[in-house]
């Protein structure tokens, strides 16, 4: 999963200047951001301010739609209208990191004067022509590129890194800076340009209407929860033997539930070896696909039309007979650390100069190692595999010793890289709060920190470590010893 998402790149650009154009380009906005990401291995710190940019477009309700990745971690967002040199300050009103969409507002009412909001169209047909609008790198003018819709399928969304939603591939040139710009067909927006594949020319992707609609519906109640997850893994059911075993008619319908995520609401309704015959209004084929507007797409799409908390009607095959069930689906965030995280700053706790932080994809990326490097192999397994393979032993929030702020009190503590912490003072560390509890309630002379998997450990003198902590924080300019 990590590998696959990492090859996608997002289409922001570091810096662009104002361009000029005419209708509907008048509704296309240039976005300039100053953003600052947190340092995941020194979580109290921020990376240098980066200037970047992207595109957006005005929609009804005096809003600007763009990509979430254009405005993530933004300290300041400036938006510029077509042919207007004045920058306007904008703010994020809603942001959906999973679907990579965001809504901006501009306080200055003058910004929206003489701009007609763009209207949305529908999912374009494969082979139909679309035009992308935006402010990509390589020039100062607004750019238009025409292309053909090449393919429609579920794509990994690079901004979040661990979700797949409907995506449309086009051969229209979509370049860095196009991010957030509208993709137009028949004067209506049919998508939002968002990512490409490095090394592959004439291949860009845009977010199509079903995903945009879901996002807009979700924010209609003034907050965004995210796309819900059914929590099932389905596999094709095309071998005659398996169909016979399940007494399933040989009609090329039905995909088999191979495994379930530990989501109680799902486990209540579905079982392994259930066969999905229909998801919502869509019959499910034996290859695990549904037919959606003329496109054969993964049956997972059938669940993506529902809002969080809604129930999806399913027709299933179980114990040799057909059944109708209703599956309520919710936003699943137990795997949030396996994707990129935004919005809230990384959590940490510093004790005796030892910096503890939750294990996450963001943290592993700072280590710059291949997953199978011996130093990172345990962390990678803990993050990506244990929950699925051995839920009983999985920790809700594995913790790593991210770094050591050197001080005489910890001078002999060795770095353990990204190796997850097993126990502290005999307490199994399930989450960051456990670290705090284990260290702050210790009454022994020493603190013992044990690591996975071979029980290697480090020792600190408890009294000295606690006493030294304020001075260490001061030395390293750490404002607080914790963010829990």
């Amino acid at each position, binding site marked *: 999963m990590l590998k696959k998402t990492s090859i996608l790149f997002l289409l922001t650009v570091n810096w662009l200047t104002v361009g000029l154009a005419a209708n509907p380009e008048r509704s296309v906005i240039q976005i300039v951001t100053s953003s600052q990401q947190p340092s995941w291995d020194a979580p109290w710190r921020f990376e240098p301010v980066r200037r970047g940019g992207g595109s957006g477009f005005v929609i009804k309700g005096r809003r600007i739609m763009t990509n979430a990745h254009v405005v993530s971690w933004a300290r300041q967002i400036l938006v510029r209208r077509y042919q207007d040199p004045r920058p306007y300050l904008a703010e994020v009103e809603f942001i959906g990191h999973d679907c990579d969409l965001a809504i901006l507002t501009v306080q200055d009412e003058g910004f929206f004067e003489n701009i007609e909001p763009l209207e949305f169209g529908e999912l374009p047909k494969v082979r139909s022509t679309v035009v992308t609008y935006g402010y990509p790198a390589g020039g100062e003018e607004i750019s238009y590129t025409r292309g053909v819709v090449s393919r429609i399928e579920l794509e990994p969304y690079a901004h979040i890194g661990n979700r797949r939603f409907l995506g449309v591939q086009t051969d229209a040139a979509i370049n860095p800076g196009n991010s957030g710009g509208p993709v137009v067909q028949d004067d209506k927006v049919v998508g939002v340009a968002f990512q490409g594949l490095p090394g592959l020319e004439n291949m860009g992707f845009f977010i199509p209407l079903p995903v945009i609609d879901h996002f807009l519906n979700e924010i209609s109640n003034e907050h965004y929860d995210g796309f819900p997850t059914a929590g099932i*893994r389905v*596999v*094709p*059911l*095309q*071998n*005659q*033997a*398996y169909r*016979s*075993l399940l007494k399933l008619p040989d009609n090329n319908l039905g995909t088999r539930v*191979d*495994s379930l995520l530990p989501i109680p609401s799902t486990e209540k309704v579905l079982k*392994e*070896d259930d066969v999905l015959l229909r998801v919502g209004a869509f019959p499910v084929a*034996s290859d695990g696909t549904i037919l959606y507007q003329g496109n054969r797409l993964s049956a997972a799409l059938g669940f993506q039309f529902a809002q969080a908390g809604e129930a999806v009607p399913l027709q299933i095959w179980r114990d040799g007979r057909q059944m109708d069930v209703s599956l309520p689906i919710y936003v699943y965030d137990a795997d949030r650390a396996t994707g990129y995280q935004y919005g809230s700053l990384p959590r940490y706790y510093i004790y005796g100069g030892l910096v503890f932080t939750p294990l996450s994809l963001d943290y592993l990326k700072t280590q710059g190692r*291949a*997953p*199978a*490097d*011996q130093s990172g*192999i*345990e962390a*990678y*397994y803990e993050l990506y*595999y244990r929950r*699925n*393979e*051995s839920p009983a032993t999985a920790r809700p929030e594995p913790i790593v010793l991210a770094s050591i702020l050197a001080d005489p009190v910890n001078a*002999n*503590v*060795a770095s353990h890289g990204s190796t997850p912490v097993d126990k502290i003072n005999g307490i199994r560390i399930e989450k960051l709060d456990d670290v705090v509890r284990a260290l702050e309630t210790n009454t022994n*002379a*020493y603190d*013992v920190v044990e690591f996975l*998997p*071979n*029980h*290697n*450990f*480090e*020792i*600190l*003198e408890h009294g000295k470590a606690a006493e030294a902590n304020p001075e260490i924080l001061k030395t390293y300019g750490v404002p607080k010893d914790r963010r829990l």
Partner: protein
Amino acid sequence: MRIDCPLSTNFNASQASRPPVTSGVPFAAMKTDLPQPVLLDALESSPKSFFSGSSSKLASKRFAWASFSVIILFSVLASTFAQDEKRSELSAWEHSVVTIEVARKQYDYFLPWSKRTIKLRKIGLVVGARQILTTAGEMFDRTLVRVQKGGRGQWWIGEVTWIDYHADLALVTVSDAKFWRDLKPVVFDTATPSDGALQILRWRDGNLESRRAEFTRYTVREGQLSAVNHAVLEAGSEIQGAGWGEPLIANSHVVGIIRAQEGRICVATPASFIRAVLEAHKKGAYHGLGYFHFYWQPAENPDSLAWLKLPGEQHGVIVTQIPNRPDGGAQVLKPLDILLKIDSFDLDIQGDYNDPEYGHLMLENLATRGKWAGDEVKMQIWRDGKAREVIYRLPKFEYSNALVPYAVFDQEPEYFITGGLVFQPLTDSYLRSWGSEWKQRSPFRLNYYNNEEPTKERPALVILSQVLPDAYNIGYQDQRYLVVNKVNGQRVNRLPELRAALAKPMNGFHIFEFAEGESLRRMVLNAGGPEQEATARVLKRYGIADAAYIASDKTN
């Protein structure tokens, strides 16, 4: 300290200080070949010619001129002497260094039924009566061994008389007595020259090539063909393509044989390790290499020793985890024991001891320093506030001790095909099919099994490595790298268990269950006639001679 190779008993002490010379050659012939006698003759004859038939004055002038000439001549001769001596020394090695050609089967674990053969050459050293020593590398799965002496000429059929992959050593012999006629055993020595100058020898295009090397250090590394740690000698050199058993020479003695090259660093198995293994083998006391089957960590953090209440000066390392012994033996160590001393060697907080031959080395070397599998090692430990002594019996290193065996040698890759589904044991040999960076390139989950210990319930793993497409297995063609848990309800850890489970289908079906995770969990196929027909069809279509190779079938 010099250690003569125990196998070179026909070599006396005075000879031992010089390069080995060829035995069985008439002395006169030897004398003309060697530069030293030739040089002495010249010195004795030249001055005489200057003095013959002359007056005293003239003789005096002549003497002065002659003296000057003699000095010039001496300088020239001295230079010639040095070159000749070097040539002579090299020439002497020609009678001890041989070329070994190995033809062996090469397997493709992605297509375990296919076999290719490759031929390669390496270097051997005559070490005793009809014995040639080389590394064990590339000697596995051999079909033919040939030996050539003098870098050219006839190839003689060789035979491997003993091989130990864990120690990375092999002995080769040639049955034809004529082969041995002008060969002479080498002498091993552990002395490292003070200037660090070493020499690497190998046959290249019919000439004995001598390349300079520089001693870098002694250290402890995993074996070239095993996970057993032992001392190695590292030497820097500009030589390229070394690592094929080339001797490393210091002061005319062999101080190691090169087992690998990493950039400029040649990694050699040191002479004393070789000598000890060969000696034990000769006495019948060698039962394979042993090792320390526990995890430990350095005690560089003084608080860790204080926490464990070790008084006095800091020393020792801390035992952290003790997996079950592969031989089922009793555990004498416990987690949080401080390991203070092994045999008579004190351990420092880094886990090193001071080796009398090599200096500071990691404690792992004490499992192989003249000790073998089954031998006892005396350990002084600190436990519960008291020092005590325990006897640790070294378990034998076996590839099968690990959940994912380190290697499989001298055995064709095992596989089992049914209906196009290809099952194989999970081994590092299989994972190495991903190339030199296999740890990064092979499927993460399969590689991660290397980090897991075998258990009674799961001593080994069988994987569905691929599916050869056929109408029978339609729907499963893309499945691969799946670890098998059960087949038809029966636990499967090895291929014979898979075969036995397939013999008991469930209501006409085969039900395959795979390890939990993100991959496919369950697969069902028809058993009986359709399965057998599919297997026959697949074998024919994909050009596979046999549906299975299971090693135990051959041995039973």
